[in-house]
C-alpha cells in the first residue's frame, strides 16, 4: 500500500494523466452527466437568484446539482492530492520558461522551500491579494474566464476534451480562440502586467 501511495505521489506522465481525464469524462457520461465544468458558473448565478432579472439564468438548476457536487469533489481531490500525495519536488518547468519568467520578475520554484510550483506566489499569495497587480490578475482574469466560457459555451473540459472527442467543429473553433487569447496574453500583455 505504501508503495502504491509513493507511486501515485510522483508527478504523472502526460499519457497517464490524459487517459485518466478520458476516464473521468466516461464516468460522468455513464452516471448520466457530462464533462463540462464552466456550466457550474451559470448554475451558481441561477442559485444566487439571477434568474429573476435575466432569463438566461432562469432554468431548472436543480438538474445541474450533480455537476456542483462533482466540482466540490474536485476541491476535496485537490486537498487530498496536496496533503497526502504531494511530490517531493516542485512542478518541474522547462528552463526556457523559467528563464523567461525570471526576466519578468516571476520566480519559478526550484525547491519545496520556494513553493510547490502550482501558482506564482508573487501574484497569488494571500498577503498579495490586495495589491493592484494581484487584483488585476485575480479579478480581471476571473471575469474574462466567466464571460468567455459562457459566450463560447464551454471551457477546456467542455470544448477541448468533450467537444473535440465528439469531433465537434464548433469546439475546434473555440479551442483556436483559447489559443489566440492565451498567446496574446502571454506574449503581449503579461510582460506589461508583470511590471505593474
Amino acid at each position, binding site marked *: 500500500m505504501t508503495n502504491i501511495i509513493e507511486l501515485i505521489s510522483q508527478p*504523472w506522465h502526460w499519457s497517464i494523466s490524459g487517459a485518466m481525464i478520458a476516464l473521468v469524462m466516461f*464516468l460522468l457520461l455513464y452516471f448520466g452527466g457530462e464533462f463540462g465544468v464552466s456550466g457550474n458558473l451559470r448554475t451558481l*448565478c441561477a442559485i444566487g437568484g439571477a434568474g429573476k432579472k435575466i432569463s438566461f439564468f432562469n432554468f431548472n438548476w436543480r438538474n445541474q446539482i450533480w455537476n456542483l457536487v462533482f466540482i466540490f469533489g474536485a476541491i476535496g481531490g485537490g486537498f487530498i492530492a496536496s496533503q497526502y500525495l504531494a511530490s517531493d519536488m516542485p512542478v518541474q518547468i522547462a528552463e526556457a520558461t523559467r528563464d523567461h519568467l525570471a526576466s519578468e520578475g516571476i520566480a519559478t520554484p526550484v525547491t519545496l522551500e520556494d513553493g510547490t510550483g502550482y501558482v506564482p506566489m508573487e501574484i497569488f499569495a494571500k498577503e498579495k491579494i490586495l495589491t493592484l497587480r494581484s487584483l488585476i490578475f485575480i479579478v480581471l482574469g*476571473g471575469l474574462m474566464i466567466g464571460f468567455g466560457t459562457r459566450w463560447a459555451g464551454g471551457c477546456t473540459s467542455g470544448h477541448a476534451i468533450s467537444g473535440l*472527442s*465528439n469531433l465537434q467543429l464548433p469546439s475546434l*473553433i473555440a479551442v483556436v*480562440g483559447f489559443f489566440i487569447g492565451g498567446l496574446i496574453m502571454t506574449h503581449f500583455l503579461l510582460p506589461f502586467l508583470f511590471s505593474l
Partner: protein
Amino acid sequence: MKLIKFFIVGLLFGIIMTKSEAVSWFRIQEMFHFDSFHMYGIIGTAVVLGAVIIWSVKQSRLKNSSGTEISFNPKDLSVPRYLFGGTIFGLGWAMTGACPGPMFTLVGHGFISMILVILSAVAGTYLYGVVRERIPH
C-alpha cells in the same frame, strides 16, 4: 445518495488535475511559450482516447447507469461566439493559469486567492447573461 458517485468522480478529478500538474500556472505558461510537450500530451491523449470512448459508446448504444441510452447534443455551428468567447476565455486562462476545473482544485490546495478567482468568474458569467442579447453568436 445518487450524488455521492459524482462526488467521488470529483475527488478523482481533483487528484488527476493535481498530479497531472495541469493546475500549475507555470505549466500553462510553458504551454503558451511552446517550451514543453507536457500539456499538449495530456490534452492530446485525453482527446484521442475520448474520441475512441465516444465512438464506442455511440456504436454500442451504451446505456447509462439509470438505463437511458447515452446521447450527445451536437453544438450549433457558428463562428463568432466560439471564436470571440474562446479568445476572451484564453486571455483569462493565461492570466490566472487556471481554467474552471483547476480553479476549484486549487482551492483545495489552500490558495485563498482562487476563491476570489471563482467569484470573479461567476460575476463574469453574470455579466455575459446581462449583455447576451447584444453580442454576436
